[in-house]
């Protein structure tokens, strides 16, 4: 058996099982830890697809920064009674079912009807190299330099805004 296939099966199983565990746990902290595991498994899948950059970002940003933030919030807010969220709120439940159905239909549509009309890149060499850090860096600093800088200013605006709204008191 091909080693890559073996890795894929392992990562896919870990991803599927951990996401299932995540939505079935009663304790939110444990759910969050399973989500971190899920992110690691997904990062492994990205690596298999030769998308190193996304794999690294997945671990640094999602598993590292965002989930740690989630865990902090969950631990600080002491969320004990989780069952209450969905029970007794039928509209939310129906809305969730509706959204899930829409997303499912979309995926089904794409799988059944869409596959022919989308041209995938036949140049495998190019698609293999496009996920590397080097290619992405080059794209960011040439073609996407304006959005990149704009994103920098966006973060500056968000930082200033968060500070001014959260500052304890003004002189």
């Amino acid at each position, binding site marked *: 058996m091909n080693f890559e296939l073996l890795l894929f099966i392992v990562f896919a199983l870990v991803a599927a099982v951990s996401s299932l565990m995540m939505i079935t746990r009663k304790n939110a902290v444990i759910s969050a830890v399973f989500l971190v595991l899920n992110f690691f498994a997904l990062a492994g899948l990205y690596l298999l697809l030769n998308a190193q950059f996304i794999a690294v970002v997945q671990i640094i940003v999602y598993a590292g920064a965002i989930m740690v933030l989630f865990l902090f919030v969950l631990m600080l807010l002491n969320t004990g009674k989780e069952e209450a969220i969905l029970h007794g709120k039928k509209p939310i439940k129906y809305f969730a079912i509706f959204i899930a159905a829409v997303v499912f239909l979309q995926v089904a549509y794409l799988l059944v009807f869409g596959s022919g009309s*989308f*041209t995938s890149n036949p140049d495998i060499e190019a698609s293999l190299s496009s996920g590397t850090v080097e290619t992405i860096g080059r794209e960011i600093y*040439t*073609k*996407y*330099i*304006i*959005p990149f*800088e*704009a*994103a920098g*200013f*966006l973060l*500056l*605006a*968000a930082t*200033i*805004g968060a*500070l*001014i*709204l959260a500052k304890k008191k*003004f002189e």
Partner: protein
Amino acid sequence: MPQTTNEYLLILPFLVLSAGIIVSLCVELFFRKGKELLPYLSIALFLIVAYLSVGQIYEKNVLFGGMLITGGIPAIFNLLFAAAGVLVMLNSIGFLKKYGFYHGEFYLLTQLSVLGMMLMAGSGDLVTVFLGLELMSIPFYVLVGMNRKKVSANEAAMKYFLLGAFATGFIVYGIALIYGIMGNTSLIDLTENFYIYSENIIFITGFILILIGFSFKIAAFPFHMWVPDVYQGAATNVTGLMSTMGKSAAFSVIFILLTAVFMNDAGSKLGNYFAVIATLSMLYGSIVALSQNNLKRMLAYSSISHAGYMAIGLAAGNKAALAGIMFYLAAYTFMNLGAFGIISIIEGEEDKQTDLNSYAGLAKRFPFLAGMMALIMFALAGIPPMAGFFGKYYVFISAIQSNMTWLALVGILSSVISVYFYLRVVVYMYFKEPGEEISVKSDYSAYAAVIFAGILILSLGLFPDTFLSVIEYIISV
């Protein structure tokens, strides 16, 4: 692809403003008196941006591999944003000190949001549109909630943030669908092949999702529910900023998205969408505004109906409509900034004096302010010599050219209704006896802002051809 120095020279307005933001940040941080300097620094920055943009009006350039477009209509929008920015700054110098949220960050956030608007107006790619939109919106959310002691400001900020994020969700989903069909996010590709792509149902779905998102931002009818509370709850100078520049920026993106429609003079399937939005916004805004006693709330509803008038042009979808909406936006911006400027002078602490009763007999106490307010109310109602009339006129004409005479008639009907609540303010000021004494602190920079707005309204109204011929020339090239 290699960049040439030439490209960096062409985006000089953006570079100047970006550098200015960093300089302002440092000035605010490191100098004790920095706050006093910032408004003047901002005004200088906006004036430089305006000067550089004027120089670019007649040369259109596609830069950075189609990410950014300078010159032409984006340059006119930049000019509008810069001029409006100067007025907001003048209005804010005294206002912030008076009403207790005097922070240097106000100026920084305003500069950042103007940078975002300029990116939106000049974007050649959906990625730039999205980043520009967020760079504009996030400072807005913060500015609305900046006065943390005021409960209504907090409520407004929360509401604005949640609904704004919701609208952004629509836009991002639409962008994703369009990317799925086109295989890229280039607006140039979208414009060139618009009629080919628009055969595709998924593309049209995505396109309409984006338009719905921007309908939130322009405050058109079914997506207006945040407008009254946010406009009333925010500080008056911030309301002026959001209601004028925010709306213009959203329109600038709609223009870019619909370039193909406008340039072909052909209208499109989307005409029906805009016709519905226009009718509902105009009538809803005008009718609900009739029963408002709070001036800020009344202007919020009038802002909804103005969005409706401009949407008439979007429904018509021809070159005349493009020119007409540009004119309308400029007129609307200066009218609203003038109106909010006067309200910000008259209102006391905690917005106590924003009711119509506070304006009773204003002509006797402050003849100058009452005169300016009357001028602006006439302009908003669309009485001929002022700018508001020609804005409506050009938009209605474009609708008639596209065989949508009924829409123009609805517009005229709505204008007639709106005359009542605009002129009610004038009646209160001139023909009512003054009620309880109101206290107004004199504020010369705010007076200057109101005077500039008045001059611009009159000159746009008296010489509409000057402005219009520039736009028509740009469109025809």
